[in-house]
Structures are given as C-alpha cells and as structure tokens.
C-alpha cells in the first residue's frame, strides 16, 4: 500500500516561493508525471516527497503516515537521480547491492536480489565494471537497478532520461514503462519533456512557477488545456495562440475572422492545434502569407504570422508552397479553444473537443 498524499504543501526560501499550496492524491501503483519548465517546482516537490528538502508548510503522507519529519531512509522510497548518483568507487554489482547492505537485509538474500534486479534492466555482463567504464545508457540502467533492488513502496525518478541521446531515450522510456507494469509500484516521475509525460503517465501534473496548472490524464491535458500555459507547453508544435477581440460573436484578428458561439465578448486568446485545421485553396477563416515551410516527412508544416504570433498549420505530406505566397486556412469550430486574455484561463467548455472525449472529467485546479 503506497498511496502518497500531499496536503497544502508549500516550499519557500525566504521570500522566494518554490512550491505553492500543492494538493495531490496519488493512488497505489499509479504512474504520475510532474511536468513543467525548469524552475517550476516539480523537482522540489519530488525532493520533498523523498525527504531531501524540508517542507515549509503542509503535510506529506506516504501510506497512512505523515512523513514530514522522517529521514529519507525511513520513508521506504527509492529514487533515480538526473545524473544517476552512482558510487564511483564501487562496482556495478556493489552499487546495486548498496541499499541492501546499509539497510541490514540478510546477506544470504543479497546475491539473488542483485542478480534479479540486474537481469530486469539487462545489466548481466557489466556487473564487475566501475561506473566510469560504462556508457550513459548503462549507467542509467544501474541507477534503475539500484532503485528496484529493494522493492520499495514508491519509485521517484528525477528527469532520468535527460542525459541520454534521443535514440536511447525512446528505448529506455519503453523499458521504464514495462518495469512499472511488472513491479506495479507507485511511481512519481519528473520531466520537462512533454512527450515523456504523454507516453508514460497515468496522470500528469503540469506545473509552472510553483503552481499546479492542470491535473489530468494525458488525453485530457492535450485535448482540454486548462489555460494558455498548458496549451503552449503541451504538443509539438505547441498550440497556436492568437490574441484578438470578439465583437457581436465574431473573433477578429489581423487576417482572421471567426464566429465564436460562446456569448463572450471583448479581448480573448484563441487557440487551435496545427493538425486540427486544413489549408484550403480559397476562403477559410484565416488568410495570410507563408512565412516558412518545413518538411517533416509524414507531413508538411506551413507557418504564417498573425501579429506577433507565429502560427503553424499541418498540411498533407505532398503539400508545397513558396515563402511569401498567399495562404488560406479553414478552422472548424470543433478545433477552437477560447481563453480569457488577462487570466489565460480556458473559457470554452463546450467547444474545441471531438465529441467522444467530452465525457472524461477534468481535475483542473
């Protein structure tokens, strides 16, 4: 049983607020991802759960205990660090065995457990080497093996893939997902990479400047971003956001006119994703000149400028045009997301979603 509960948790250094009033319930065996740009408080949150950082205010529960004042070693968690934190003077085998040794687990069990953990991450041939003699990917797997050897209640992972090259990142991502499925332990995973968050998470917490922006499944966060920050953070390319004014139910910006059937008026921010709109030869709701064109292989990305915003549109893979040529884009009403201009909060509750996704409930804070 390892539910983890954070109740009104805050972290402050003097007047600087690292994490502000964080509330979260993590179910047993859930895979939760904390996502946000650097400095958003996600790592601090994880370090508070691990006991490496004091909690300024609030309570952290692991299982049925408040752990605020427990040492890291007494919290029954394990952690994979961004730079792995391997012990350079110990062999791979001794590195993996270390948690068993310092916790006084009977010596007779050590060998079998180390070998089992090593086998799970395919480290068999490297057990006698020192960390310095390993590649980045192998070191990463040693850190994983060390964290699973003890079979703790919860795994914490702090950007474990950020030091790997792109190719290795994809395969290790799959390995972590598979390990979680096998071990069925609560896992908290910190990353700034939205693709890792989307692929790994049961639920995602998007954070910015110490505040929770949105909590939900990857689909909810992608399809119904709670505010402009989440909208611009999730997706590749990020959601297009255009500032404009609504008068008489019509949204207008430079080169754009679009009916907004929401009953709002005044300044708003309008969003749509590149893949939800189509390039059309004539008409459409958006007209501009082509700013740039990029071939992605499976599609062509066309961009244009609307005021200060650079707007991307995903076109068919065989679409071709010239920089400076006129561009017409059709924006279906279901593709439109509407945000309040000053607060950035989502206004369009009933538009902008494919019909089948509206049923899932949102956990936005």
């Amino acid at each position, binding site marked *: 049983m390892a539910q983890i509960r954070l109740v009104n948790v805050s972290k402050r250094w003097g007047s600087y607020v690292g994490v502000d009033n964080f509330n979260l319930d993590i179910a047993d065996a859930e895979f939760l991802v904390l996502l946000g740009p650097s400095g958003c408080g996600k790592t601090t949150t994880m370090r508070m759960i691990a006991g490496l950082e004091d909690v300024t205010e609030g309570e952290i529960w692991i299982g049925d205990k408040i752990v605020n004042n427990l040492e890291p070693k007494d919290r029954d*968690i394990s*952690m994979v660090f961004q730079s792995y934190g391997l012990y350079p003077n110990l062999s791979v085998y001794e590195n993996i065995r270390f948690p068993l040794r*310092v916790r006084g687990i009977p010596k007779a069990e050590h060998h079998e457990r180390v070998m089992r953990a090593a086998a799970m991450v395919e480290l068999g041939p490297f057990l006698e080497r020192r960390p310095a003699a390993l590649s980045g990917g192998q070191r990463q797997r040693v850190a994983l093996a060390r964290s699973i050897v003890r079979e703790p209640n919860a795994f914490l992972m702090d950007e474990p893939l950020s030091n790997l090259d792109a190719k290795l990142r994809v395969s290790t991502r799959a390995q972590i997902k598979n390990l979680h499925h096998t071990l069925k332990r609560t896992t908290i995973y910190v990353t700034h990479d939205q693709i890792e968050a989307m692929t790994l998470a049961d639920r995602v917490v998007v954070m910015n400047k110490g505040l929770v922006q949105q909590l939900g499944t990857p689909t909810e966060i992608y399809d119904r971003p709670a505010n402009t920050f989440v909208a611009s953070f999730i997706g590749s390319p990020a959601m297009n956001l255009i500032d404009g004014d609504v008068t008489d139910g019509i949204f207008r910006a430079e080169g754009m006119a679009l009916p907004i059937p929401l009953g709002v008026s005044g300044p708003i921010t309008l969003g749509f994703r590149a893949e939800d709109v189509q390039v059309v030869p004539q008409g459409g709701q958006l007209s501009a000149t082509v700013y740039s064109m990029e071939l992605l292989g499976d599609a062509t990305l066309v961009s244009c400028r609307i005021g200060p915003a650079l707007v991307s549109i995903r076109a068919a893979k065989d679409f071709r045009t010239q920089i400076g040529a006129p561009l017409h884009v059709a924006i279906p009403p279901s593709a439109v997301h509407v945000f309040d201009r000053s607060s950035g909060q989502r206004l369009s509750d009933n538009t902008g979603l494919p019909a089948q996704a509206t049923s899932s409930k949102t956990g936005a804070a």
Partner: protein
Amino acid sequence: MTDIANRRPLALKTLTTVFLVIWLIAAAFPFVWTVWGSFKVEADFFSRQSWWMAIEGTRTQAQTGSAFTLQGYEGAWIKNEFWKAAINTMIVTLSVTIISLTIGTLGGYALARSGYRYAFWILIAALVFRAMPHITLVSGYMLPFFELNIWGVLPTTIIVLVAINQPFTLWMLHSFFLSIPKDLDESAMVDGCTRFQAFRMVIMPVMWPGVITTGLFSFLLGYNDFAVTSMLLSQQNQTMVPKIASFLGSIQNEGNVMFAVAAVVSATVPLFILVLFFQRQIVSGLTAGAVKG
C-alpha cells in the same frame, strides 16, 4: 605546437627561453649552492677571497683532508641535538595534519552541504581569521597559557596550530566537497544511510584526492611555522625551525655557522621530497581555492 597559428617568431622564442633559464637559476640555484656548501668548512662557504674556493673546497681539503666534510651535520645533529628537534617536528606536523583533517572534513562537508546562510557567514568569518597574522594570536595565547601552566609543551602547540590552520582547511575542503555531486549523498540517504553513514561510506571514498591535497597544506603549515613554535615551545621541546633560529643566536659567535647551514639543509630535504612526489596535488590544491573561490 606545430600548427601555423601557434608558431612563434624566433625572437620571442629566444626571449622566452632566456627568461625561463634565468628564473630557474634564481629559483633553484640558492638551494643547490647551499646543499653543496653544507659539506664544506666555513672558511670555504663564506670565503672572503673567492667563491671558487667553495666549489673546490680548498680549505676543507686543508682542514679535514677531504673535499667534503660532514662536520656541519655532526655538529648540528649530534652535538646540538638537532635530532630531538626533528622528532618533535615529526610529532607536531603529523598530529596537526591528522587532527586538522579529521575535524576539517566533517566541518567542510557540513559547510558544502548546508544551504543556510549561517554556513556562508562561517566561511566569511574563516576568511577573516585566515588573514590574522599568527604572531598577533600568539601574543593572545602566551599569558593565559602561562597562567594555566600549559605553556611550552607539544600538545598545546599542536592544538594551536590546528586551530590557526582550520580556516584554511575548512575553505579548501569545502571547495573540494562542492565538487562532489550532491546526488551522491542524496542517493545514499534514499538508499538507507544516515547523514553520517553517507559521509563515511559514500563521500569519503571519493574525497581522497582532496583530503591528500589539504593534508599536504596542513603539513606544510605545521612544518614551516616559526611564529607559534618559537613562542609556545620551551627550549627542550623545540621543533626544527625555532631550533635553527636559536642556532643563529648562540652559534654564530663561536664561528660555527656551518651547523646552522647543515640544519637548514636537513630541514629542506623533506620539503623537496614532498614536492617531488606530490607536485600535482600541490598545484591542484593551490588552484582549487582560486578557481572556485
């Protein structure tokens, strides 16, 4: 250095070489000369006629029958009991090094890992203490030590040297600890260590280079000190450096300055050996403070 960009004009090359040769002579010749001269008699080493006599050892030949003599060493080590001073120096420097490192690693580690601002202020205070002239502190010790009746003995001197050395030790070890990633102690603590276990089992094994380097400097401080040892040790407990100084007062009159020369050479030899074996650590130690501080 064969690429075009780094090819240097001949004039510059010559200038550099000449400069370096002059510097090396200035740096090394005094030592070579004194070591050579320590095996001569005074009339040769301090020859009024020609320094060529010191090279050939004319008077030495005349007085002892050989071009080299051990008279100076014999006088210093045996007659004047320089061996006692050497033993005292060994006791003092080794104790200072060991005690400094023991309490310094603990303190330096705490300073490197605490994020609170008092750690910063302790380091600043240490910087100020580091700047205090040792002799001014000594003048603060003398009277209380007389009163407490602990003046003149080795343990007092050892503790005082440790304390005087501590600001520097703390700074240096602190900067070495900073270069060890925090991840390491944190993973140890998550893996089940207390703070002290993490320090002992995980951090210290990778700290050896820093400890050795800092130890070298503690050793040098204890070994080279004159202000503290000359004031706080009684005659019979003197270490080498104050002993050499006392030679100057008493022996020069007797015309046996060669005892002092031999003692000086004897005291220099361990330093040569130290530099020979630990050159890399000394260089890295001097720069560790500079590059990071």
